[in-house]
C-alpha cells in the first residue's frame, strides 16, 4: 500500500520524528523504496524493508527493516498473545494477496513468515509449500510448524488486478480464544472513512496522527526506520532475522520444487532474532550455524505467561 505516498514524504516524516524527539543519528540516512542501496550510497545509511532485499547479507550500511512489526494491528495482536488473552496459541492463519507490484510473492512470504514468528514468539521449524503461476511466482500456499508445536498457514498471492488494494487477514487461534485483525463475518478490509460524493467513492484509513498523510504501511515503515535510528544496537538483530527470513523463503521454494515438507533448522543465535522473552516459548533447536537445512520437523510444547492491564477507549 506504499504507492499512496512517496519516498520524499517518508523521509520528511522521519526527519520530523527525529527532530521532535531529539534523536541524532550517527550517520546520514535515507529511506529507500526497496532493494539494495545504490552504488553511490557511500556512507549514507540506507533503511528499507527487508522484504525488498534479495541478498541475505545486505551491505553494511543497509538496515533491513521489518516495518509490519510497527503496524498497530500487529502490535495489538502480539499484546493479546503476550498477555495470554488468547492462549496457548495453536494455529496461525495468515493471508495476503497483492497485485504483485505492491509486493511480489517472495516479499509476501518474507513478511508473513516474520509475522508468524514475531506474533507467536516462536520460530518456524518446518514447512511445506506449494506454488503456482508464471515461474511459480503468482501463488503460494504454505503450512508451517513452530517450535512449540503450533502450526501456521500462509495463503500468498499476486493475482489481484493491477492497482487493487491489498487483501490480507491474520488470525491467531488458541485453545482459549481467537484473535484477528478482521472483524467477524467479513472478508474484505474495512476503512475508517467512506465518502460517496459527486467525485466518486473514496475510502481512507488514517492510523497515526503524528504521521498523518501516510497510510498504515508507510507509517509503519517510517516508525521502523525511526526505531532503527533511535536504537542502532537493534540493527544486528534485524540483519540476523533478515538472513533467517531469506532462508525460510528459499526453503519454501525448495519445498515447492521438491514437493516435500522440509525442516528449517535454527541456531540459538537465530532464535534471538525471531523470538522474544515471554513469547510462546522456545525449545531451542541445536545445529550448525545459521542456515535452513533439510531435516525432519521438530515438535515440542511450552507456553509461558505474563499479565499486564491494558486500557483502551476513552471519549
Amino acid at each position, binding site marked *: 500500500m506504499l504507492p499512496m505516498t512517496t519516498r520524499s514524504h517518508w523521509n520528511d516524516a522521519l526527519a520530523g520524528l527525529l527532530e521532535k524527539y531529539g534523536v541524532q543519528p550517527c550517520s546520514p540516512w535515507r529511506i529507500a523504496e526497496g532493494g539494495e542501496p545504490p552504488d553511490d550510497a557511500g556512507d549514507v545509511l540506507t533503511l528499507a524493508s527487508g522484504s525488498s532485499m534479495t541478498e541475505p547479507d545486505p551491505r553494511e550500511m543497509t538496515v533491513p527493516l521489518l516495518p509490519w512489526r510497527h503496524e498497530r494491528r500487529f502490535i495489538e495482536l502480539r499484546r493479546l498473545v503476550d498477555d495470554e488473552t488468547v492462549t496457548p496459541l495453536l494455529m496461525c492463519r495468515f493471508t495476503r494477496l497483492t497485485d504483485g507490484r505492491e509486493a511480489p510473492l517472495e516479499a509476501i512470504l518474507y513478511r508473513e513468515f516474520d509475522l508468524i514468528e514475531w506474533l507467536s514468539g516462536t520460530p518456524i521449524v518446518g514447512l511445506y509449500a506449494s506454488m503456482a503461476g508464471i515461474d511459480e511466482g503468482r501463488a503460494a500456499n504454505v503450512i508451517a510448524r513452530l517450535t512449540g508445536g503450533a502450526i501456521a498457514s500462509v495463503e500468498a498471492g499476486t493475482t489481484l488486478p493491477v492497482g487493487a488494494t491489498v487483501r490480507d487477514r491474520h488470525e491467531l487461534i488458541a485453545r482459549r480464544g481467537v484473535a484477528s485483525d478482521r472483524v467477524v463475518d467479513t472478508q474484505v478490509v474495512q476503512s475508517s472513512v467512506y*465518502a460517496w460524493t459527486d467525485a466518486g467513492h473514496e475510502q481512507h484509513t488514517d492510523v497515526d496522527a*503524528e504521521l498523518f498523510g501516510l497510510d498504515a504501511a508507510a507509517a509503519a515503515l517510517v516508525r521502523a526506520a525511526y526505531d532503527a535510528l533511535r536504537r542502532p544496537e537493534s540493527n544486528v538483530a534485524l540483519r540476523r532475522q533478515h538472513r533467517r527470513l531469506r532462508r525460510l523463503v528459499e526453503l519454501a521454494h525448495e519445498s515447492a520444487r521438491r514437493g516435500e515438507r522440509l525442516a528449517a533448522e535454527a541456531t540459538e543465535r537465530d532464535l534471538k532474532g525471531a523470538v522474544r522473552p515471554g513469547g510462546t516459548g522456545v525449545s531451542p533447536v541445536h545445529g550448525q550455524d545459521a542456515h535452513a537445512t533439510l531435516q525432519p520437523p521438530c515438535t515440542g510444547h511450552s507456553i509461558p505467561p505474563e499479565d499486564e*492491564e491494558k486500557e483502551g477507549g476513552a471519549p
Partner: protein
Amino acid sequence: MKPVKIAMLSLTHGHTRKYFQTLLDSPKLEWVAACAADDVVYDRFRRAVDGVPCYRDEAQMFDRHPEIEAAVLASANCEHLRQVEACTERGVHVLSMKIPTFDLAEYDRMIELVDAAGVVCQIELELHYNPVVHRVKRLVADGAVGRILSMQATNITLSPVWAFPWQGSPEASYGRRVPLGEGDPRFRGGALCDHPHVFDLIRWLTGSDFASIHAEVAPNMRTDLEVEDILLVGGKMADGCTFLLDPSWSRLEERLPEPGPGWEVFPKRMEVNLTIGGERGTLMADCFGPNVYHNGAPNDRYTVQYTYFDEWIGLVDEFVDCVRRGKQPRIDLRWHRRTIEAMNACYESIAAGQPVAV
C-alpha cells in the same frame, strides 16, 4: 524547546491513565509531581508509575514544587473551579478535563481567573487529535461533501461509574442535584455529562452553532443509577444543518473497580461514528476503527482490542506549544462555553419535553 514541568491533580478522572505514558514519554514534558484525591487512588498511582512523587495534599505539592508550570486537572467536575483557582493564583497553566463545569457562573469565573493570570487553559477534547477526525475535517474543509445538511453521530460507551463513582453522582458530575424532570427520580449528571465530543465536533465541522435542541431520555439500562444513561439528542444548527446525536452509556460493562481487560460486555466499549450528509455527497467515519478482535481472556467474549489511542500525544503537543509560545489552544474556555450551553440545553429539553432554543 524547554520541557514544561507538569503535575497531575486528583487522578480520579477516567482519562487519568491515558496521560501516564504521554507524560512519561514526551520530551516536551517533565512530570514533576502528582496529587491523589484519596488513598485508593494513591495506591493505584504508585502501582502504575515509578519515579514521580505523589502527594495527598495539593497545597503541599505546589509548595514543595514551585517549579510546576502546568497542571492536568484529572479530577471530578465539581473540583475544577477550586483547582483552577489554585493553579491561576500560582500562575500555573491548566489542562482541563472535557467538562470544566456545567454551572455557567462558575464557568465565567474560570475565564476571568485564567485571563487575569495570563495562563493557558486548554480543554481536553482529544478527538481533535484523532487521525480519522483529522481526515474528516480535511474532507469537509476541501468541500468533498459540499455544504453540510445533516450530521448523525454516536458517542456511546460503557458506563465508567463503577470505576469512577463521581460520574454517577449528580453533585460531583453535574455540580448539583437537579431532577431530570418532574416526577423523574433521576438527576442530571450521567451519560450526557460524559460525552461532549460530538457536540463540539458538529460545531467544528459546520462552522455553525446550535440553534435548537430536543432531547429525550429513556428508562435507564442500569436501574440502580440515579443519573441518566440512555438518551438521544436532535435539533438544528443555525445554518440549517439537522443533527441527531447519541451520547449514551448504551454498552453494558462489568462493574470493575478499576478499568482493565474484561470491562466490556458489548464487544466495543467505546464508539464515535459520524455520518455527514452534504449537498454533494455523504461521508461515514468510524473514529476508532478498524481494530483487532478476540474472544479470549478474561471473559471469553468477543471483544474489540483498540488500535487507536495516541490522541494524547497531539493534545500535549498543542498544549506545550501554547504554553511556550503564548498561543491560545483550539479548544479554550471561550470556544467550549457554547458546547456546554448546548449540553445544558439538552437537560432543559428533557425537563420541558420540548425543543429549546440555544
